[in-house]
């Protein structure tokens, strides 16, 4: 009987193997790599699902740039890779898949150093449609260079794109990060720690802290390596001295921590805390961005200066509260004027409604509102 069983199993597998059809043509149409000639790039290209950001060195003439694209095997791009274009405004490319059934429009933006403002009011948002019919807010900041009149849009990053997978068709106010009306001045950003439901629990990420930061959220690796998914930083050519703004914070009722079996368990007596901080650091090829694993680490050699809320300031505060934090320079760290001018240094601002959010611990419902941020530089 056993022999018959094994023979049959073998037979089935052989039958199945011989029935495998020819490899279908690729359906995906992604840009997977970008190359700019002559060492024009100051950072690795930032490639997201439908946009590419190229950070180039100050001297690069962006009116005549010819980026070359690496695509999903078999896909084609219009206009062709290597076409010279004027990137004063973002340019669109359309990638079509090998099987011809799918295409995707990419917005390619070229950014030079110090293209960010120093004051943030969170008045402007763009509504992003999620794949499932939901909507969430994306905060924008437009800066106009006085001399060149170049208009740059900085997009604040948040974990909303990851949360969108678990949120179906719900509107922006249900997301961890959204725009709220009752700001200190005008509108503000509101960040709320949310439960991710059964879906999030299935991938061992049962809560999502509300967050907003300067950098990029890499949704592709958000499930596999969540600490590395929050990529902090953008080039900055001034020396920051003070970081100020207004905030109010209400922690959620029950603090829960993620235990060894990836389940949430309440912690008696522990109250959630928010976090607001800014980090000025040197970008090196090995560490172009900071991420959740090293952004505040004491032993991170690239960090030059940090401004952050004190222990008391991270507690609950009902009314709008002003904070004014100095950038504390780490021992032995100095600023090299050449590196500064060439955009080798970067800055990031990070805000979160649960300080341990990247370890999926916190209190659901913790709410942090922030408005009128300002960086004061030399």
């Amino acid at each position: 009987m056993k022999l018959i069983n094994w023979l049959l199993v073998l037979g089935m597998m052989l039958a199945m193997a011989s029935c495998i059809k020819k490899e279908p043509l690729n359906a995906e149409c992604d840009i997977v790599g970008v190359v700019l000639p002559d060492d024009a790039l100051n950072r690795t290209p930032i490639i997201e699902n439908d946009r590419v950001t190229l950070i180039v060195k100050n001297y690069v003439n962006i009116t005549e740039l010819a980026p070359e694209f690496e695509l999903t095997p078999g896909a084609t791009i219009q206009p062709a890779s290597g076409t010279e274009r004027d990137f004063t405004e973002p340019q669109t490319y359309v990638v079509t898949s090998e099987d011809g059934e799918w295409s995707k429009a990419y917005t390619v933006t070229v950014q030079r150093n110090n293209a960010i403002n120093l004051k943030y009011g969170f008045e402007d948002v763009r509504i992003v449609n999620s794949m499932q019919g939901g909507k969430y807010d994306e905060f924008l900041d437009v800066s106009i260079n006085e001399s060149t009149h170049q208009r740059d849009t900085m997009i604040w990053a948040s974990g909303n794109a990851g949360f969108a997978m678990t949120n179906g068709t719900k509107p922006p106010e249900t997301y961890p990060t959204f725009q709220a009306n009752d700001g200190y001045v005008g509108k503000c950003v509101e960040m709320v720690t949310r439960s991710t439901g059964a879906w999030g629990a299935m991938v061992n990420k049962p809560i999502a802290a509300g967050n907003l930061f300067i950098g990029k959220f890499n949704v592709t690796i958000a499930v596999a390596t969540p600490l590395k998914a929050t990529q902090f930083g953008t080039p900055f050519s001034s020396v920051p001295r003070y970081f100020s703004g207004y905030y109010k914070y209400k922690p959620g009722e029950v603090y829960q921590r993620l235990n060894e079996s990836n389940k949430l368990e309440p912690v008696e007596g522990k109250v959630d805390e928010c976090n607001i901080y800014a980090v000025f650091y040197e970008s090196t090829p090995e560490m172009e961005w900071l991420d959740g694993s090293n952004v505040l680490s004491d032993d991170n050699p690239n960090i030059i200066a940090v401004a952050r809320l004190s222990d008391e300031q991270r507690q609950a505060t009902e009314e709008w509260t002003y904070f004014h934090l100095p950038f504390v320079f780490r021992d032995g760290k100095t600023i090299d004027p050449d590196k500064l001018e060439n955009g080798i240094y970067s800055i990031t601002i990070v805000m979160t409604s649960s300080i341990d959010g990247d370890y999926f611990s916190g209190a659901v419902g913790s709410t942090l509102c922030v408005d009128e941020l300002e960086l004061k530089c030399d």
Partner: protein
Amino acid sequence: MNIRKYICLAVTVCASLHGFARSDVNKEDFTQSDRPGDIYKSVILGLEYEVNAGVNIGGASPMPLPAEIRQINSYSPHLNLQIGTTVTKWFGQDKKWGVASGFRFETKGMETNANVKNYGMEIIQDGKKLSGKWTGKVQTKYHTQQLTIPITAVYRINDRWKLNFGPYLAYAFSNEFDGYVHDGYLREGDPTGNKVSFEDDAKATYDFGSELRKFQWGLQLGGSWHVLKRLSVNANLTWGLNDIFVRSFKTVSFNMYPIYLNVGFGYIF
């Protein structure tokens, strides 16, 4: 526990069929203790009883394999037991042809792991649906417990061998189809959607058990080797002809058919 339940049911069924045969021929007087006489009468009337048991090996498979399935990494048939009874009525003096029917309580199952590319997936949790195209590995487990009623034409080749062929109808009183995806990535919605990687231990589970049909039907083709006076060795290939999923279920974009080989022994009364 299930085996015992099946045996009890099979014996009950046999006994009732036996009773049915008796009532059919109430011209003569049979006493309860006259068992050997009953059997002889049945044989004379051309009714043959058999209690059989065996195992099912096979799986639910799309026919043909769609291009999205790139490789079968592993296949485990599971232990799928079957116990049942067959009653055959022979016609004519030579008893070459007959018709057979009966009951079978059986489990059909399988577990496979396959590499897939651009494979339609849907994960529903809390009423929220996340669908998309998965490229990577898929682990699938199928398990069903069914009551099958075949009605087949039987042809006796010689004293030792007979063939049967005909349709069967099955009712699934227990249905499971679930598994998980791992070591790959999901494109949210369609191939142009956000790409989300699942590596190492990360996995997303799915459960389509509620979308399985309760009634299946198909064709059966088999043979029996009458090895000893009361013992036969049976082999039946059952080929499902309707999709195991209900028509409204579109997430798995291809039909899957249960194809099983049932091998076992029969005790002939």
